[in-house]
């Protein structure tokens, strides 16, 4: 029984989540402050993977990063980076595909905080960065956890976009969801069952954990 697809999936989900958190936090903060046409358009683009068929997204990424022409060729010639049929490509595709799951909850939570919290912090002489770290971030920790878990869990379950840009290369792009499909194709129901059960169990534990944590937080006595 080859468990590499499981490790590869966890690695992909972990890297995607960490990178998206680093990018998503400042983007969500910026989006939460004020409105402009540019912000509305950007937000729409970030949200699109929620409704766009994954195969469509994967197809366009495949075209965009094809090593034969355009950006893909330039990246390969200049930096020796190839996004098509490689693990880096999976990470990039996963980041784009899971972006709304990271940015959405964080942005909504920041928007719901009263503006007077930031103002109170500024009046004490604190910078925007100090205010973000010490006041805003701790007060959205439930949403932050939700965003991280949703992003991780969503990446675990990616199929279409991963298949399009990564294919099915063992130890490189053959993640668990593809291994399930591949096993069923080969009538290997035992392997398909093991992969599926592991994914199911991980997702169940994570999502249940978030619900329990958030409920506990709401009922928390004096901390």
């Amino acid at each position: 029984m080859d468990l590499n697809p499981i490790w590869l999936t966890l690695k992909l989900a972990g890297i995607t989540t960490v990178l998206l958190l680093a990018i998503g936090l400042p983007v969500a903060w910026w989006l939460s402050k004020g409105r402009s046409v540019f912000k509305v358009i950007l937000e729409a683009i970030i949200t699109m993977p929620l409704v766009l068929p994954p195969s469509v997204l994967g197809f366009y990424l495949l075209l965009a990063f094809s090593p034969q022409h355009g950006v893909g060729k330039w990246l390969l010639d200049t930096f020796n980076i190839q996004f098509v049929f490689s693990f880096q490509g999976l990470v990039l595709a996963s980041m784009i595909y899971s972006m709304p799951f990271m940015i959405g909850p964080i942005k909504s939570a920041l928007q719901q905080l009263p503006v007077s919290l930031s103002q109170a912090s500024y009046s004490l002489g604190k910078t925007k960065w100090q205010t973000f770290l010490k006041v805003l971030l701790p007060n959205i920790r439930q949403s932050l956890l939700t965003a991280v878990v949703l992003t991780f869990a969503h990446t675990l379950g990616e199929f279409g976009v991963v298949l399009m840009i990564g294919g099915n290369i063992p130890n490189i792009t053959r993640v668990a969801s593809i291994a399930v499909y591949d096993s069923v194709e080969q009538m290997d129901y035992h392997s398909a069952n093991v992969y599926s059960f592991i994914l199911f169990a991980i997702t169940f534990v994570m999502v249940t954990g978030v619900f329990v944590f958030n409920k506990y937080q709401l009922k928390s006595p004096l901390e």
Partner: protein
Amino acid sequence: MISINIEKRLKAYHGQQVLKIARQFEPGSITKIYGPSGAGKTTFLKVIAGFTHPENGNITVDGVTWLDTASKINLPPQKRMAGFVFQDYALFPNMTVHEHLAYATSDKEWIEKLLAIGKLETLTSHKPQFLSGGQQQRLAILRALAIKPELLLMDEPFSALDPEMKVSLIDNLKIIFKEAGTTVLIVSHNPQELENLADDELFIL
């Protein structure tokens, strides 16, 4: 000396109105600000603190220009550091009583003194959600005082306090303001409660 001359458009239920105030405040003076709801009392304080900006005007505090729309000078709230007591308290849900004050100042003696003035010494490890309305309001006042501001802006700061606590707190605040020479502007719907505290007044219509 604080010199304020501002003009700001306000959105009102019956259309737009203009908040227009030209006034000077003596250093160390305590001014009560009152007027009908929607007249712009809170907006006036927020303009001074730098949270919102007027269309026209200037604000000078002790010779330093905080705002001058003509020459596009506009100091951010962090540089103005006017103490601000918010009507909704604006307490930080993640911080305890002590952490609120420690976030504002590292002066431990001052923190102890403030806790005693606000009678919150026994509640230092409590977060705002476990404080009563009056305790939250006192914490909001103490937090604003923690930075020892030269100018203190208070928006309905005593509305949730019981009469006994109000008298005691006002007596203590009077001493602190006098010792520090703090200039104070207090918005109140109930100007009578400030009769023993304020020495000046501003009516906004």
